[in-house]
């Protein structure tokens, strides 16, 4: 138990790094994937190729994807963020498209009948109703990003994975366990927080619909 106490400051710094990398990646992933999800829900024939492309990144082993990006982007945060953004695309695009497609057609007709424009229907009807499903995708993507970010420590991205890799290579069990417990706690905390937010959103949307 002496390791975490003696290195509290280091652990805190690595936790902040870890949160930063995961948060930036998730935000960038949402900014790219959600518009793509909307596009795919509008232009149906685009859905299979776009989802297949996102699935390709999802299938590549994470260590291999990090490695493939090194010759292009070097070591550090840049290839890490790109890899995390690529990984999150499938969960986010799929959930956005599914959420929007599941909106009741009767509601869309009612909105049209009320004289809403396409943009108004999208922002005021479809997106709000799809939010719980989109949010479930955000939750999956966030937990995945936190997990993958720990692996990225090996390519110099920092974060809590540093403790695990260092501990393994120097045979320091306390350090390994500290890193493993810290990163698992971070992932579970993020999952629990997002899942209660998701429930609140679902409840709020349920009341309005």
């Amino acid at each position, binding site marked *: 138990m002496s390791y975490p106490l003696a290195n509290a400051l280091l652990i805190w710094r690595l936790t902040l790094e870890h949160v930063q990398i995961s948060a930036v990646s998730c935000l960038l992933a949402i900014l790219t994937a959600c518009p793509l999800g909307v596009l795919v829900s509008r232009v149906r024939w685009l859905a299979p190729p776009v989802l297949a492309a996102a699935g390709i990144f999802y299938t590549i*082993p994470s260590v291999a994807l990090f*490695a493939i990006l090194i010759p292009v982007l070097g070591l550090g945060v840049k290839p890490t963020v790109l890899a995390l953004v690529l990984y999150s695309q499938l969960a986010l695009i799929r959930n956005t498209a599914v959420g929007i497609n599941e909106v009741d057609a009767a509601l869309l007709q009612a909105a049209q009948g009320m004289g809403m424009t396409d943009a108004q229907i999208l922002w005021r009807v479809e997106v709000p109703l799809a939010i719980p499903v989109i949010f479930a995708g955000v939750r999956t993507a966030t937990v995945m990003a936190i997990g993958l970010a720990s692996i990225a420590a090996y390519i110099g991205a920092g974060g809590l994975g540093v403790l*695990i890799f260092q501990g*393994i290579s120097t045979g320091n069990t306390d350090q*390994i366990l500290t890193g493993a417990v810290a990163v*698992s706690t971070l992932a*579970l905390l993020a*999952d629990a927080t997002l899942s209660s937010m998701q429930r609140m959103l679902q409840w709020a949307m349920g009341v309005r619909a």
Partner: protein
Amino acid sequence: MNVLSYLLEHPTQVLALARAHLWISLLATGIATAVSVPLGIVVHRVRAVRAPALGMVNVGQAIPSLALLGLTLPLLGIGFTPALVAISVRALLPILLNTYAGLLSIPQHIIEAARGMGMTDAQILWRVELRLASPVIVAGIRTALVVSIGVATLAAYIGAGGLGDLIFQGIAMVDTPLLLAGAIPAAGLAFAVDGLFGILERQLVRPLG
């Protein structure tokens, strides 16, 4: 970039690593299937187990793979066996979840019809429930296999062997051809296995109609 020349100069090494990679992934998926299909049946049958079991699955899903390796190492050390255990644990969840979901999706009236025909509980399980749930279960096994190949790449760091060896060596030695000689075949292996399993899945599903 002379990955190609590396591959051409060391074809037996890369092939041997690919074979080791495939072997540990298949073995882990086999173990995971043997454990989690019965577990999924229990979770579906015994109502009291459902909520706690599914809660544990959720927690398990959130724990990062690297943390899982970190937690296995102090218990089992470094090498093939601890890597196999960690990969198997990772592969358990998708199969367990899909077995449960597959059984849950069977309409109650079909079970009642089978009972009305005089089938015993065991017959209903084998001839009706598992038959009808098999496409979903097989999809879970496919996910587990792709996950296993990914985690096996990472587990090279704790002595699993396989293509991850080349990647970690290549990153540590800043040797781009070496890391690509691991990463590209690892990605190829994941695609090949996913594609082949997809074909198998369709073959399995069709005769059931």
